[in-house]
């Protein structure tokens, strides 16, 4: 089947088998290997990406279901030139060890922060349901998300100031 989707801002067109999973499409066809596979029962969250802004588990989504969508993977979240606040948070607060679950967990947590700008510890832990990390014991993931929340708030504040003073950029 012919499918096309915008992945991390770039238009992609491919011919795929109808049964191909989105996660395999991203990893094997598009070489976006940041998204990982941790299970085959949709429990671990290692494969979390955004489809049209909503976080989904790409191991239970078919590539054809994402036809015509906009997809964001960890590679589209931010890079070293401009890390997303959640990436920064994970780095600053030691939110990862082996880093295998990390892309999926960061995608899920960035989505959580879009909905809840200032989540409490228990809201973060609750929001981590559906994601398994075997290395960290989760505590520093909680700290990483809180760090990101503070950063996002600061970024917003900066933007607000920039807009209100009419200046063209962040000084």
């Amino acid at each position, binding site marked *: 089947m012919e499918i096309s989707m915008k992945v991390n801002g770039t238009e992609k067109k491919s011919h795929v088998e109808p049964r191909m999973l989105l996660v395999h499409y991203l990893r094997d066809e598009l070489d976006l290997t940041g998204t990982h596979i941790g299970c085959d029962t949709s429990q671990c969250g290692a494969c979390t990406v955004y489809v049209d802004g909503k976080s989904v588990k790409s191991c239970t989504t078919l590539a054809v279901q994402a036809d015509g969508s906009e997809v964001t993977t960890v590679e589209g979240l931010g890079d070293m030139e401009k890390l997303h606040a959640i990436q920064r948070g994970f780095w600053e607060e030691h939110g990862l060890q082996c880093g295998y679950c990390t892309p999926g967990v960061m995608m899920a947590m960035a989505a959580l922060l879009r909905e809840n700008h200032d989540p409490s510890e228990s809201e973060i832990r609750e929001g981590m349901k559906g994601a398994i990390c*075997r290395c960290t014991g989760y505590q520093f993931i909680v700290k990483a998300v809180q760090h990101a929340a503070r950063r996002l708030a600061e970024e917003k504040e900066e933007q607000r100031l920039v807009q209100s003073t009419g200046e063209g950029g962040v000084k």
Partner: protein
Amino acid sequence: MAKLHGARIKRQEDPRLITGNGNFTDDIKLPGMVHARVLRSPYAHAKILSIDVSEALEHPGVLAVYTGKDVNPEMQPVPTSWVVPGCNIKPKPRMPLAEEKVHYAGEGVAFVVAEDRYIAKDALEKIKVEYEELPAVTHQEEALKEGAPIVHEDVEGNLAFDWQPAELDDEVFEQAEVVVKQRFYEQRVVPNPMETRGAVAQYNSGGGEMTIWCTSQNPHIHRMVYSEVLGIPESKLRIVAPDVGGGFGAKIGVYTEEALAGYAAKNLKRPVKWIEERSEHFLATNHARDEVIEVELAGNKDGTLTALRVVNTANMGAYLSTMGAGVPTIDFGLMITGAYDIPKAAVRTFGVYTNTTPTDAYRGAGKPEATFQIERAIDLFAHKIGMDVLEIRKKNLVKKEAFPYTNAMGLNYDSGNYQLSLEKALEMANYEELREEQKRLAAEGRLMGIGFSTYVELCGLGPSKVAGAIGFQGGLWENSTVRVHPSGKVAVYTGASPHGQGVKTTFAQVVGEKFGIPIEDIEVYSGDTGSIAMGWGTYGSRTTAVGGGALAIAADRVVDKAKKIAAHELEASPDDIELKDGVFQVKGVPGRQRTFQQIAKSANMAWNLPEGMEPALEAQSFFDPENFVYPFGTHICVVEVDKDTGKVELTRYIAVDDVGRVINPTIVEGQVHGGLAQGIGQALWEGTVYSENGQLLSGTFMDYTMPQADFFPEFETACTETPSPVNPLGAKGVGETGTTASTPAVVNAVMDALKAYGIKDLEMPLTPEKVWSAMQNRRELV
């Protein structure tokens, strides 16, 4: 320059991992690469009557289907790598694919290679295998009974080994004032790193070289064994562990699939990738624990402990896996007295074959089980004589003055200050207040419990002479190379092969501190037998203690040579040169100096070196420590048990660990947290379930409870620092402390909460259903 040793430095490994630039085995893609899958036995025990692969071979896109008949004659079996002496051990070599009989559900019977992973999966369904099912046995005690199904025909009574290094007369126990006898069951768990196992194999048919990228904790060990299995000289076989997504012991083992990928790559002249699925991982990657431990602890009414006797009946599964036999024997048996000064001890371990997945090392390997039995037994002993569980610990802990201390099993504990960590934990917990609160809650009818674990464990494996004496088929020293490039940038190569422990950062800190250069100037490489001379891998918390020891020695050698070059250039004696903040300076003569970078350049240009000196600035160390290291500490767990549902809620968890000198406190905390999650996981949620005929009922994340974020409170952790005298860094090892200490702390806390019900012991995991049922049965007591 700020001090690096002891500093909270952000990890150097993270930028790649947080931007999706990690390079895990499944991320590797080679030109012409094809995909493999394993057909696994649906039966736990069955004769293979026939295998028909013709239809699978005709399936479009299928390149090859191998069965045992094809591959076994051309490969060597995967050996048992820990042949414990003096126990009449009967290892069963493991052939790449089962040929005549399958011994556990999930054992491989065919290996399919196809153009893509979907086709490979399709092809599995087209292979026809005729089985004749045989009766299976999954529990070790059942397997030892007369008339039990026999796993391997030539192993009578399913007894793989019988290890008894020391005995104690019955009299010792008959004459004791108090004896506690208890049977514990350490349930079977699955290590479950988030990345499953996998391999990519590539063969050069011109030169005969093979590279296998795989999820390994010890690539040099894998090279050693796969070289034999595949018949490729070690010098032509390269094993690379790229980024590895957690190991926890499960990726130490030498398995058959990685070798089969190599075989297929050679045969088909195409790179072959095999990646395990999670449900496959549950069947095919080593499990752990699964030990029935019977304890007799003797002592006096005043709480003095006098003797300990332990019998462990260990379920080894269908084969003795790589380190399998060492875990319930050496790793467990020599540590049974824990952190206590118990003068007499004896142990016996039966290793039993069953129709289950083999068991092997898992975070802590033997030490968590040893800690569990003594920590639980000591609580039971205290209850029996009406003593406080804290008092009995205080009374029997090895005293600070006693170090180096030899335990009753003959192990020599390097250094320790057990009282210090205990006091610190009590202070953090505000212990008196906790006990008051427990009383207050009890008055309201609520069940709060407080549990202790004052533990010690054996880490930093370890002296090679000892390794030889205990039958380990390898050495346990470690190798590090420090290479200074002409620019003054430094490359470090370590034979320890980490998988999430933050070793790049820790090691860069060690070298940065020694040279006085920023850690950004140092790159640490690991996991590649092609560039690293030798190494024995990362497990048993040995990386910093042994690998870091080698690193410190190599770095010192570099400094020595650099000083000589600086002295030569500055026309001074090497003894008068000091290195400070990256500058070699003639003592007391400001201005007469050379920077580290200048010396790096001089050494490599070699225009003006001291007479007879070889060019370049590089040193290597092969460090073999004189002893193991023994981290220790005190954990206190607080729980509340819901009377109506039996649900255990963790309300507080305090961990004070002494891991020797700490290089990066943040990384140490992270390791402790991860370890706690796994140890607590075993106490409360994790557990493998087999059906009677050997089907794995807990074979996915849907039926095996993996700990999640909302299962835990915030951990309260701290360190005391008692340096180890056996390595230059004074480090002791931290990876396993959390797991080792926490399981008994949690169970002790739950038992404390259930004291009023007269419940002395419950089998883990302490699920709500189990706790609730136990309370129902004992209702009358309350």
